[in-house]
């Protein structure tokens, strides 16, 4: 442990207050923690904590409410955008965000996310894509990459049999009601800076009433990928980003 040095120093990195000071249940190296921290920071930076209603979804991130200390309602599997629609319509002055994984959003909840986006609901959706069903033990997800082995495609995902991975940021961007859609990663400091900007812009579209805001985070699942956290993080750059290109796919503010 370091001793406090004589010279003046300032605390330059600490956890945001709205992020509960508790250990997380996430596995070592799981990047939900980083994304939770960014969401918490953005809520504080925009002064939204007091007026936020979060919608948690099913999967590893169902326990969002244990970590981000805002009013929260739990949605059935895939239905977070429909629940968030109900919340926002009932309480138009609230800041409403949903936090969903890939099985939840891109498979069982595909209708709900597409239609909430298409209606231009004034909500923000944080989508975490780690190419696998985490909580149920690593089964094939709609975003599983070709050749990727999971417990339900043990020989690797085969395009002819199972189709290819769905690229949600691009799909969402194609809908008229969407104000912002981007894909980011948190595998490096450079990408994290971009991710934070995208998350801020996602929230801003709701604050300004521009329309539906969507940000897809590429993230790791070392446990179900059966690799070390460091190797998992390396896979993001090597395999995921080439298959799921980062970038802003739609920004209403830049379309005039």
């Amino acid at each position, binding site marked *: 442990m*370091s001793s406090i040095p004589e010279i003046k120093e300032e605390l330059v990195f600490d956890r945001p207050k709205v992020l509960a000071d508790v250990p997380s249940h996430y596995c070592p*190296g799981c990047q939900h923690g980083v994304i939770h921290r960014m969401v918490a920071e953005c809520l504080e930076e925009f002064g939204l904590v007091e007026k936020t209603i979060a919608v948690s979804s099913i999967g590893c991130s169902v326990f969002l409410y244990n970590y981000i200390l805002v009013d929260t309602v739990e949605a059935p599997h895939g239905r977070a955008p429909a629940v968030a629609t109900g919340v926002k319509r009932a309480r138009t002055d609230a800041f409403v965000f949903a936090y969903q994984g890939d099985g939840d959003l891109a498979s069982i909840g595909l209708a709900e996310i597409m239609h909430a986006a298409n209606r231009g609901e004034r909500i923000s959706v944080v989508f975490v894509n780690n190419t696998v069903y985490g909580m149920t033990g690593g089964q094939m997800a709609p975003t599983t990459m070709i050749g990727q082995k999971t417990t339900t495609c043990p020989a690797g995902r085969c395009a002819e049999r199972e189709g290819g991975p769905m690229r949600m940021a691009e799909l969402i961007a194609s809908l008229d009601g969407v104000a912002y859609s981007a894909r980011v990663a948190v595998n490096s400091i450079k990408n994290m800076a971009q991710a934070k900007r995208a998350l801020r812009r996602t929230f801003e579209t709701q604050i300004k009433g521009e329309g539906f805001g969507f940000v897809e985070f590429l993230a790791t699942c070392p446990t179900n990928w059966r690799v070390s*956290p460091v190797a998992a993080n390396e896979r993001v750059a090597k395999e995921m980003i080439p298959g799921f290109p980062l970038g802003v796919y739609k920004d209403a503010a830049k379309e005039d």
Partner: protein
Amino acid sequence: MSRIVIDEERCKGCLLCAQVCPKAIIAASSRFNAKGYKVAEVLEAEKEKCTGCAACAQMCPDVAIKVWRSVKSKAKEND
């Protein structure tokens, strides 16, 4: 001198902090915490090299790292 403090009870030993540290001064220690994770530490011999860039803290999925940066004067505020 800038420095980091790793909350060893929160650390899960994933070593993403070590992977991202530009000075390569973080590594696995020989200690295990109460949950059985082998925690990360700043190498004692290298700790002077810390610039307080906070890359490790940003990378840490468990938000287990606090960062203090030395303030020399008002001159240098940026990363």
